[in-house]
């Protein structure tokens, strides 16, 4: 398995969920202490469902792909699904041989979104 899988390269070059939302219900932002990268995740929530999400950030290909895959996985899903997700489930989608030193890059978008949902009191 390669470090930079086809999934990562494709999502890095042509992200599908990169951007911002007008009037998002949930916004979260945090920094990766390893590199100082900053990532912001926004989502719109209707009832108990996350209808759509967008991310922005100057970040590495792994964080970018992770954010993109994450928002694809959660679009239209119950917000509770976001809470259950683990970095391992994103890693599976990325199909990549990520070393422990880069796992923070995989996990960052998910932890940002989870913290933002928790802050808004979403289930």
């Amino acid at each position, binding site marked *: 398995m390669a*470090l*930079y899988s086809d999934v990562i*390269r494709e999502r*890095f070059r042509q992200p599908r969920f990169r951007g911002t939302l007008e009037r998002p219900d949930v916004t979260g932002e945090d920094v990766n202490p390893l*590199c*100082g990268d900053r990532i912001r995740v926004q989502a719109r929530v209707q009832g108990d469902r996350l209808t759509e999400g967008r991310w922005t950030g*100057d970040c590495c*290909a792994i964080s970018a792909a992770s954010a993109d895959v994450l928002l694809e996985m959660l679009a239209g899903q119950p917000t509770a699904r976001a809470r259950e997700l683990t970095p391992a489930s994103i890693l599976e989608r990325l199909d990549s041989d990520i070393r422990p030193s*880069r796992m923070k890059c995989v996990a960052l978008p998910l932890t940002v979104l989870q913290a933002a949902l928790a802050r808004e009191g979403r289930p």
Partner: protein
Amino acid sequence: MSLGERCRPDFPILTRAVNGHPLVYLDSAASSQKPASVIEAIQRYYETSHANVHRSIHTLGEEATERYEAARDAVRAFIGARTREEIVFTRGTTESLNLVAQAVGRTLRPGDEIVVSELEHHSNLVPWQMVCRDRGTVLKAIPLLPEGYLDLDAYARLLSPRTRMVAVAHVSNVLGTINPAAQIVEQAHRVGALVCLDGAQAVPHLPVDVTAIGADFYAFSGHKMLGPTGIGVLHGRREVLERLEPAWGGGEMIKEVWIDHAQWNDLPWRFEPGTPPIAGAVGLHAAVEYLGKLGMAQVSAHEQALTAAALDALAPIPGVTLYGPRNPEMRGAVVAFNVEGLHPHDGAALLDQRGIAVRAGHHCAQPLMKRLRIAGTLRASFSVYNTIQDVQRLAEGVAALREAL
């Protein structure tokens, strides 16, 4: 045969492969590799002479003490210090700098000023921020000129009778800028300020004469100069060390102790509480001997040639931005750069796939990154064992980066 080709066989780790490629190690500014003589000296010490130093009245204790103190003499000679009392062993540059900040910090009053620079490594910045927090002192920073030189006119304007400490790097760990150490010291002394130089990126690469430079404190690490981790040096001018209270208490730093007070030991042990890194000192001694045999002028010339070659090889690659002075004579053995559209960590990971080890990120110099308006850089750095072939492999790897993702 170049110095790099002559040295390579002395470094066992350089024979290994990484990701199926012969290792090209270009991260010596973070930590250098070790020659066999250093590894063997540490092993020999543990196999034949290990015991605690100074207090053990038995043969091994005496041998260990002898080795430890011999290392001090070797370091003294290597950096041109006047006396062995001026050489304090620590665990590394960071501990040396914290020692100075603690000990000097205690003598400062609210409103006193500490001058740092925008290119400092966090280890010569954060300890001074802590002093300011605890003592009410004020931190000022020397700004940078384009290309990464210190703005010495601005420095002159920052100095005043309120300045009590000037803490700057001798050589920048990112830009490579060699700062005019002696001039910085001279100007600071004129207003009565002390000077603490971070020499972590200087001593491994340049001839350094601490007496000629004249700083009150000069800090460096063993592991960046072919020695082991866990050993560092603080050179302090004797007359300054003598009037300072020790930073930390413990065994060995005392002459006599009562239940409510203690009398301090002589220099340099006053500043070395607890069991010191004895094996580290033995290893550093071997490293200093290795570098001494090569000659630091030759080391410096060799690394400068590699730096110049790297700047020449990287500059024409599309999308590459280089940082730091363009004149290789004005810089140490580091080359920081970015590739357009590529995060430094992705760049480093992709180079690693080719067996090329470089550093990526903010290099513990976030204020400098903010000044340059970047999140981080890639950084290739050189040591005695690098060759022009290493520079070529780097350039090939960097040229392929933009297509790799």
